[in-house]
């Protein structure tokens, strides 16, 4: 499974794109918290939360299934929960007497619930990144009282990811260009290949270190005093408050569905 390094923000003219980023961050975190609180096997609540994600994606004009298509990133991790149906005791759903294995009902319910939680929570994260430009997210983190130096480091990192990714692409191209397969000769040892990779990491580190010195010098000469300043600010408008309240109520409503049976 791979993620591709392009900006995840998708610009559209929608109500959700224009909301205060703090509202979106708080609603997303609250949503993921609630997804975690839903009891195992409360299919109605899971269904309601999933419909919520679909609706949110549709409302942000990204297309209803925008997040669904991108939400398979967590699949390799499902292996960790895969033994659950076999080891949790309970009434058997299917049993394989020959292998001495039983798939129990409570185990399956738990496994499917974990799958659904991950599936729904990942989509909420995808939609947050797709509807909010990263600098706005950074601003929201600052204004939600996350320590400023940490936020500044994150903002800086984001700015240089793409620059250093270019360096990496050049390094890998250079390695590929110098590593032809010679007929009749075996491949070099794994250890050797690993050491070459290590040297590439080392030289990338030195380049990054030099770059950070230059960046610091440039900033210091322009009056940098250790404090980060930003231009963008948001004010909570009426529509932001209303959205915050409506989204929270919808999420709480979905949570309360788990008490229905």
């Amino acid at each position, binding site marked *: 499974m791979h993620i591709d390094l392009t900006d995840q923000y998708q610009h559209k003219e929608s109500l959700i794109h224009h909301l205060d980023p703090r509202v979106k961050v708080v609603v997303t975190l609250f949503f993921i918290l609630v997804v975690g609180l839903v009891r195992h096997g409360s299919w109605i609540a899971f269904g309601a939360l999933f419909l919520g994600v679909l609706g949110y994606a549709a409302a942000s004009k990204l297309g209803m299934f925008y997040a669904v298509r991108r939400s398979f990133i967590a699949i390799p991790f499902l292996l960790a929960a895969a033994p659950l149906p076999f080891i949790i005791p309970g009434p058997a759903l299917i049993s394989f007497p020959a292998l001495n294995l039983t798939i129990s009902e*409570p185990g399956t319910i738990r496994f499917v619930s974990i799958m659904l939680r991950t599936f729904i929570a990942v989509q909420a994260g995808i939609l947050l990144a797709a509807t909010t430009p990263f600098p706005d997210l950074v601003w929201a983190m600052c204004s939600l009282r996350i320590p400023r130096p*940490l936020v500044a480091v994150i903002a800086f*990192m984001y700015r240089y990811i793409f620059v*250093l990714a270019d360096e990496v692409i050049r390094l890998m191209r250079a390695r590929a260009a110098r590593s032809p397969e010679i007929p009749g000769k075996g491949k070099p040892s794994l250890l050797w290949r690993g050491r070459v990779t290590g040297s590439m*990491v080392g030289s990338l580190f030195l380049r990054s270190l030099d770059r950070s010195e230059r960046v610091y010098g440039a900033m210091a000469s322009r009056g940098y005093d250790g404090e980060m300043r930003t231009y963008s600010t948001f004010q909570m408008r009426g529509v932001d408050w209303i959205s915050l309240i409506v989204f929270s109520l919808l999420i709480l409503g979905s949570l309360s569905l788990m008490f229905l049976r």
Partner: protein
Amino acid sequence: MLFSPTPLHIPDGFLSIGVSIVGWILAVVFIGIALRQTKDQLGERQVPLMGVIAAFIFAAQAINFPVAAGTSGHLLGGTLAAIVLGPWAGTLVMTAVISVQALLFQDGGLLAMGWNILNMGVITTFTGYAVYMLVIRFLGSTTRSRLIGGFVGAWLSVIVSAMAAAIELAISGTSPLYLGLPAMAGVHAIIGLGEAIITVGAIGLLQASRPEVLTTGETAPGKRTATFTLVGLLVALGVAAFSPLASAHPDGLEFIAELQGFLGLAQAPSYELMPDYTLPFLSDPVLTTILAVAVGTLIVFGLAWLIARSSAQRGTVRD
């Protein structure tokens, strides 16, 4: 450009809410200390240096080498960051990397991020750094001892971090400890070799071209506190692993209910009025125990921190 996520980024949904919150509390404590320590270490260079180095770790994770059968070895970077910057700056750099991966690429969950920061940002950096410094202390500050220390440190850091993740999953009732721990440790003993080889390659290059970079890391703050912090955290995790929470039966509550024979009773009509738990935060015995473990963890960590502080102040060389 393609990045392959490591199986150490825990997505949301795999950790229970109680466990996630404990992770966030611990992560906040560590980030707070790291911010203070790096401010003392780097001053106003803190932001530009660590921002660019965080971008470096992120980009370096993409440099891979083919191993076999379509798999490839690549870097996680915690140990390397700690060796060149010191453990606290390494922690902060890794925190930034993990935050961006979770926020932007959904590589690791947002609620699970507390533990992801601890596993990949704190445990890897401190394990790697402690082992590296230990080897240097016994073998002297030579190229060979740095390479050996880097190799063992990087390898162990990945394994310890994977074991920590296995314990967290077990406490959450997602993966039983008796299966998860050997599986995670085993897989990462192999993945860790890639990490170790790349780290050694990088140290070798730095040693040959800019050896002073390596000495900066060795004199960074946290030299003395590293071992104490690590031991405190590992003891706490060990206690949690062997507490009844992480028993072979993922849900302690359901297991006890079955033992006492009232699972049948629970499925009687009364079940409809009283679901598994009504107030998720108060009436769940598993959660209360987790909170107890959390408090214990914080106390152990606090003690380790105090001991480290006082021993650092008594020593002639202050770190």
